[in-house]
């Protein structure tokens, strides 16, 4: 096994453990935002798409590169924006909650 491959496998294995560890305890209400957030993170494939698109020099590679960059960008931008929209709601609750009971007792 080459040195580089060995390094890559090391990162791979350690990342598995980190990924599991980081998520272990999550309240149900955050399942969806968390899924959406991780969904945005795998948009990192955009880096790969840019790498293959950069050297495009034939019709086939041009099409592959163009489609890959488009799809991956949609994943990144859409993923982060939609997650933010979901989480916006949680913020709304925290800021308005203290005022609410006061308003109701009047």
């Amino acid at each position, binding site marked *: 096994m080459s040195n580089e*491959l060995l390094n*890559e496998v090391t*990162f*791979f294995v350690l*990342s*598995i453990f*980190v*990924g599991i560890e*980081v*998520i272990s*305890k*999550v*309240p*149900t*209400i*955050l*399942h*969806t*935002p*968390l*899924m959406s*957030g991780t*969904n*945005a*993170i795998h*948009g*990192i*494939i*955009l*880096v*790969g798409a*840019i*790498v*293959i*698109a*950069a050297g495009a020099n034939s019709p*086939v590679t041009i099409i*592959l590169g*163009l*489609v890959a*960059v*488009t*799809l991956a*960008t*949609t*994943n*990144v931008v859409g993923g*982060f*924006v*939609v997650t*933010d*929209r*979901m*989480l916006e*709601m*949680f*913020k*709304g*609750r925290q800021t308005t909650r203290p005022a*609410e009971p006061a308003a109701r007792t009047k």
Partner: protein
Amino acid sequence: MNTLIQVAYLVAAVLFIVGLKQLSSPKGARNGNLIAAVGMVIALVATIPLLHFTTAGVIIIAIGILIGAAVGAIGARMVKMTAIPQMVALFNGVGGGAAALVAVAELLRFGTHPAFAEAFPSVFSIVIGSISFAGSMIAFAKLQELMTGTPITYPGQQIVNGLLAAAILGFVVAVLAVASIPFSFISLMVLALVLGIAFVLPIGGADMPVVISLLNAFTGLAVAASGFTLNNFALIVAGTLVGASGSILTKLMSDAMGRSLGNVLFGAFGQTRTGAAAAAGGKEGRSVRSGSAEDIGTLLAYSQRVIIVPGYGLAVAQAQHAARELAELLEKRGVEVTYAIHPVAGRMPGHMNVLLAEANVPYEQLKEMDEINDEFKNADVALIVGANDVVNPSARNAPGSPIYGMPILNADQAKNIIFMKRSMRPGFAGIDNDLMYDPKTLMFFGDAKDSLTKLVAAVKAA
């Protein structure tokens, strides 16, 4: 590889991990998302100096980013809150598709006899990325109701899927051991796309969140595999993080439904037919009672304890504000009002919490299933607003039912049950609900928002 780029990738990886950590607690969640986004920008910018661009390359990257950013941002901004689950499916699918295409481009570049260490992750990425892409599109279509949400099954389905998987395996071996030619890996991609579709078809719409989460983990792994192909550290780390955390999240989600992942994915086989038949047999000759707004308003106004059970119908009708209005009105009259939130009410875990939070419903009134299930027997009224499967007693007592074994809210134990629904149409799981025929149940038909508004008026008059 340049040291500076490596350092930038390391920073990005750390930001992803910190972001994920923050995303798993309610307080830091929004920041967590931003932190991860910063990591993404760093990784992207750091990659650029590494590359030698052709003119065509610069142009297609610019066009691709423009289109993708526009579609992603506008799509994510414009989508209604109710449709967010299918948006997540869509964004997940395109990521899987991108991973598969990157791998195809690399295989083309490697030539006919690539080293195993490069070819293997490439074919892995093609297969898993394509399954994720096609499966996510079906999940999207089911949630968007472009196609039926009920499980689609046919005789011999498992055999067909098995043959597809075997054919894929055959082409994998062909690419790795014989020759990596476009015919082989394009066939591989097509077969994997078909398998992705075939895999999601028999899964009911109500289980889509779990499927999307699983496919999300798949895409993560496909991205990690593409990272091995490209020898790109950022892709390996970020993809693997998503693969691992996505798998755990998938398990957490199916646990929340009280089912094993295997049951969610393959539960439709052999079960739906008996379940549907049992439901169809039982439906005949039974009658339902329906009540007027005045009846129900009076009942509510003179109750002591009311538990509201919100479901997808509330989300569709955007009835969360009307629900809060009714609850406040009742509370003013001294009625104790709580909301019973089933973990998978709506189309996604947490869907109801998000909607009710938007309507400023006090957090303390939202009770999770375990917390509230023993309270139903003390409740005067269980007011079911657009929920169905999560209160369906078949989950408890009909072993043939597709939702058998799913923990449900004990709404049937309340002294009175008000079932607000648009029609008698079965719920998302496509099965009949015995609760509608319960003698204690009063149906109140109509759009959830209109109905709640009518009830508000009726309670005021009572």
